């Protein structure tokens, strides 16, 4: 059954889009990631204009992270204060990202920049995650002894601890400067707007390795920040570029909400390390595919674009 998307201005198969939402929702429920990094390239592949895919995706992620953040809030695994400081940076990041998106679109380079960002971030994070989780599986027998030793060791002072504007974050049990927090929020916000993703795959490692937040509050806090940043991104994209398609968003939301339920149940039965290896492999596969597309000779060397956008921003 075909359905016409009023903003994307193309007709798509309704079950294909619902199925995509379902599959990506399943993966996001299983791995605890937003899944935007998978869905945006697929939507573009299906024929949705990249600008519409990225903006609509932001709207869909706002819905899925809202449900996740609420669940974490009830379980008290959400550091609201940390989330708000991250958000302060995220708001500016989002505005900057949407602006950069318009400029790149006007120059005809948006597809290239989106692909490059994907290859870079997915490649680096996928590789790191893969190495880390494979090592964890190999050392499984020995970890308990080392874990004890590691916990007792005092943390080294790092350059981050030398920064001014220190604040206490009671839920996370941290006393750190707000500067790195705001900077991380800004970068993730900009990436989210540019790539049509929530940015959880950048945010979570940054929180764990740079801010050293306890793992139990990381996911909830990251979802909290993603919720507001993607909501703002969707609003800005709609207001400035008119590229949010609510019909497409609604179909994706319905699919992903149901898929996430099944994914979360399956994920609970699989061991964490295996899950991380699988996620890393998937992330790397997407990165390799996009890297291949960038270097392979395209089927048509010419690309047609609407000229109206260029005029508006010239």
């Amino acid at each position, binding site marked *: 059954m075909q359905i016409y998307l009023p903003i994307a201005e193309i*007709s798509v198969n309704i079950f294909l889009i619902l199925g995509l939402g379902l599959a990506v929702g399943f993966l996001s429920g299983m791995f605890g990631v937003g899944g935007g990094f998978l869905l945006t390239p697929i939507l573009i592949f299906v024929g949705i204009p990249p600008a519409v895919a990225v903006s609509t995706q932001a709207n869909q992620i706002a*819905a899925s*992270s*809202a449900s996740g953040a*609420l669940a974490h809030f009830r379980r008290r695994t959400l550091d609201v204060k940390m989330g708000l400081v991250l958000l302060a940076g995220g708001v500016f990041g989002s505005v900057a990202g949407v602006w950069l998106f318009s400029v790149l679109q006007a120059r005809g380079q948006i597809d290239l920049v989106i692909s490059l960002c994907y290859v870079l971030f997915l490649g680096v994070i996928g590789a790191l995650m893969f190495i880390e989780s494979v090592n964890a599986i190999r050392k499984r027998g020995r970890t308990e002894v080392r874990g004890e030793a590691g916990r007792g060791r005092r943390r080294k002072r790092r350059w981050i601890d030398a920064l001014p504007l220190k604040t206490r974050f009671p839920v996370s049990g941290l006393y750190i400067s707000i500067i790195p927090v705001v900077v991380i929020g800004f970068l993730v916000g900009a990436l989210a707007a540019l790539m049509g993703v929530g940015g959880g795959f950048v945010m979570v490692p940054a929180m764990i390795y740079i801010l050293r937040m306890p793992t139990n509050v990381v996911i909830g806090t990251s979802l909290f920040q993603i919720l507001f940043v993607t909501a703002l991104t*969707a609003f800005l994209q709609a*207001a400035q570029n008119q590229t949010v398609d*609510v019909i497409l968003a609604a179909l994706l939301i319905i699919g992903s909400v149901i898929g996430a339920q099944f994914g979360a149940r399956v994920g609970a039965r699989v061991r964490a390390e295996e899950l991380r290896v699988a996620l890393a492999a998937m992330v790397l596969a997407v990165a390799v595919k996009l890297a291949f597309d960038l270097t392979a000779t*395209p089927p*048509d060397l010419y690309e047609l674009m609407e000229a109206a956008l260029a005029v508006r921003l010239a």
Partner: protein
Amino acid sequence: MRALLALLAALAAAPVFAKAPPEGAPPETDIVAALTQEVVEIRSNFDGAELVLYGAARGLREGDDITVVVRGPERDLRVMRKQRSFGIWINRAPVRFESVPGYYAVAATRPLSEFATFTALRRNEIGADHLRLSAPETERTETRFGVADVRVSDLGAEIVDYRDAIIRAKADEGLIAERAGGVELLDGGLFRAQVILPPTTPVGEYAADVYLFRDGVPIASRRTTLNVQKAGVERAIYDLAHNQPALYGLLAVIFAALAGWAAAEVFRRR
């Protein structure tokens, strides 16, 4: 249906077709034509549309040909060519084309080159090869071989590659189509042609021109119009998004938040 009745009335008023024109008087030719639909509405189930253009040619003789050209609303296009640098393909060399028809279809009783002269096709822009695609920013006029006001492209022969790229990309989507034999001649000067609008067809005013060709040149023509517009929910959403973008964005975000909240409620109960 109204159009069909009008056509029948016109046919009734016309003299009997088969009869040769009286001696001495100039041979009279005229065309009447209508589309099965004058308005195509894009609703949520829109997946392209198929229309039929039918009509009658008065004074049609053996060896005459009919051509139907449908032109959609014009838009400016930017075409970029990919070039490889540092191993990756990057969009370069943008060329701006003005007033490119968003839809362009030609149907004829026979292949165009068999019955029409090059000049006639070029002048009336009949056939994808003769469609005028101008890139004013790359053009200048100069005097060549003593002829004033010759338009020359700065890109030289490359402009042809850009042109071909536009036609190729649009033909893939069904937005440029050329069908020899697409016009069916029936008895008594009646003819029929199918117009296929793909799902990506642009919104706006379309013009369908019917030409009667004799001895290589068009001797009569008739234009009918067609309007493609969004309707129902699709239209309401599109209008809201463009007329009240801030409100639309706000509603989209509120909808997302509500959907997320609803999902969290369902999660909690399990």
